[in-house]
């Protein structure tokens, strides 16, 4: 009986401490580790929310006539709607699904545009070193008492594999994951080994290598990002939220010229798989994979989804077309 009384008292103390922590200390920690948590509260009463990684932003250090974000260009098409954006560099569906769930039931935001980077389905991104920080943030996005979330963060109760472990996992995937081509293009490592652009010091060789590493994979239903998107679809259905997936453009021209048709075929095959999966589930997926030219990509030494003004406007226009079906 004494033990039960003490446990009950401990429970009361914990409730009181959670309240004190939330009132006086939680905001400072969230600002440091998971600022999007606070952002959700600020923007929950708008019409459309654009969620993406860094692709939404204009390039730094390149002067433009209209250096605005993709989300702002989209909003130009809908003057009567309130648009907001949530952006976090390197984030992906594994983060977005938690953010989506954070929006309260009574939120006025009923349309979400979710950006999809094709790269994010590959082992390089899934096992990136940046994942540890994102996983830390995800601890805060869970719907639990805030003091418990903070405690779990201290206990490292999330996937916090070391950089070496992550690197080893990526290497493992590159060496064993089968690609739908005969050898030597049957794995990423084998494919990279036969690239035609001279030795490793040649920048073209390095870039070709990165294209293979970033896009050399086959998406299937077991892919963790697919599961994340599926989870988002579930939330969307359960809460009557409209979700528009915005599959971002990739530098197909450069991939084609450096690596060849096999890689671009694989990229298109993966895209088709995603389009089929989510349109068949009743969601809209804007396929921007091949809509931009090489000149629209601002990073020239690594495959990214960073676009110039023209590129951002083209993508925004395509997204707006899809949104018009929801907001005529």
């Amino acid at each position, binding site marked *: 009986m004494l*033990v039960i009384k003490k446990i009950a008292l*401990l429970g009361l*103390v914990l409730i009181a*401490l959670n309240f004190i922590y939330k009132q006086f200390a939680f905001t400072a920690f969230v600002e440091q580790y998971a600022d999007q948590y606070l952002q959700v509260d600020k923007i929950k009463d708008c019409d459309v929310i654009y969620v993406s990684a860094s692709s939404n932003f204009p390039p730094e250090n390149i002067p433009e006539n209209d250096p605005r974000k993709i989300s702002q260009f989209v909003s130009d098409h809908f003057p009567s709607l309130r648009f907001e954006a949530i952006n976090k560099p390197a984030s992906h569906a594994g983060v977005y699904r938690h953010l989506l769930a954070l929006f309260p039931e009574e939120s006025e935001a009923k349309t979400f545009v979710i950006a999809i980077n094709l790269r994010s389905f590959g082992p390089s991104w899934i096992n990136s070193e940046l994942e540890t920080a994102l996983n830390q943030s995800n601890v805060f996005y869970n719907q639990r008492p805030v003091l418990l979330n*903070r405690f*779990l963060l*201290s*206990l490292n109760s999330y996937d916090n594999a070391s950089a070496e472990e992550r690197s080893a996992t990526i290497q493992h995937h590159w060496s064993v994951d089968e690609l739908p081509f005969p050898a030597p293009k049957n794995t990423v490592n084998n494919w990279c080994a036969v690239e035609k652009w001279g030795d490793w010091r040649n920048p073209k060789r390095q870039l070709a290598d990165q294209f293979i590493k970033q896009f050399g994979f086959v998406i299937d239903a077991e892919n963790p990002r697919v599961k994340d998107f599926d989870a988002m679809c579930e939330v969307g259905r359960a809460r009557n939220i409209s979700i528009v997936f915005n599959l971002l453009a990739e530098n197909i021209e450069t991939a084609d010229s450096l690596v060849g048709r096999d890689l671009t075929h694989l990229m298109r095959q993966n895209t088709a798989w995603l389009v089929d999966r989510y349109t068949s589930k009743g969601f809209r997926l804007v396929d921007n994979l091949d809509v931009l030219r090489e000149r629209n990509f601002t990073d020239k030494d690594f495959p990214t989804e960073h676009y110039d003004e023209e590129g951002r406007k083209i993508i925004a226009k395509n997204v707006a077309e899809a949104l018009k079906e929801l907001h005529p």
Partner: protein
Amino acid sequence: MLFNSLPFLLFLPTVVAMYFILPHRWRWMLLLAASYFFYGYWKIEYLGLILFSTIVDFFTAQFIASSETQLKKKIGLSMSLFTNLGLLALFKYSGWFMADVLHPISAVNDAQLNDFQSFWTFALPVGISFYTFQTLGYTIDVYYGRAIPEKNPFKFALFVSFFPQLVAGPIERFSHLHHQLFTEKKFDYSFLQHGGRLILYGLFIKMCVADNISPIVDQVFEQQNDASSAQLIIGALLFGIQIYSDFHGYSLIAIGTARLLGIALMDNFNAPYTATSIREFWSKWHISLSTWFRDYLFIPLGGSRVSNTKLAVNILIVFIVSGLWHGANWTFVAWGAIHGFSYLIERWFISKYTAAWLKFPQWMATMFIVFLAWILFRSASMESAAYYISNAVSSESAGISIEWSAISISFIGLFLLSDLHFKNSSIHIWLNKQSAIARWAVYAFFILSIAGFAGTTNHPFIYFQF
């Protein structure tokens, strides 16, 4: 599994509840299963090694006890020493031997060295130095007739693997721990109260003090080329506090965990930074290891009843072996040597000065040596340590940008004050003297600090690497 992890926080109450629900005759089996689960949770492969060590020491102890001649007993003991120290040598020191001895004389090439080190570094089992010493102590005790060997190999396996103290001590003696594991105990609320308090305080000093200091210490030691003299000195001081709070915190959680089961483990620390001599420091720091070396190395070497020269050699052996026990690096050897030489100087020249007014300068001198030696302990190499020390004296750098947190500084201050207050006592005794409201206020403070303000980066206990 780590003490400061969610799996352990679920594992512990489950084991404690099952322990007191089960009839007495089943309890030790539960503890054995729980201990192997606890250890195997890191890597299942680790179990093979502890099992091997257990089997060897079980049978060598039986052999020693049943041998009628001294020669046979010595053979038995040698087998135990060879096996246990051989395991340590293989897993812990072979990489160092290859790199620092064979590689410089070109007996192995770079590729061979890399392959060897990457395998053995990966394979180094957590806590091998701790359980190896514990089981070695057992066979030595049997050899000297101080312990009657356990006849049940499974019960002996529990003595070796008892999970609260398996991976980082306290290193227990057979005569102290063994009988407690098998004595019938009725559930008593005081077990929960005592153990819970120690665990709470241990988690506080590990997670709030050590883990909040850790990023600053890492930054200073990694950027020592750019740090100012003041920052390097503060970095060394903070490392001394970090390693103490980290290991003391671990020990308290271990002792508290055992206490929940009604088992008393030995204390491992007693305010070591209040010591006014190196001798006193070692009577307060990692007590279970320093007494192990005293009982199983210093005394067999002849103890104090030998000539001054032999005594000096014995003391240096003990301290240097103690340094090597911590890790395979010349920095640990130098760390042990600094303590050994200081101990001798103190014994021969300083210990006769006992005036009260000398206590403060003696404390200052002791702390200077202890914290200077910590620089060697923390540095990756002798060169790095020498560079750190010379820059701490005269760095021309403007300094690095360090993020100080008022909360972290407050935690450090509170820890040092409380440590001073609990000297020769414990938080449990202190809390017993407080009113119920004061006690619960202290609990609430610890819970809020641990849950809300602990360090956020991944820092395993420092002593796990040893």
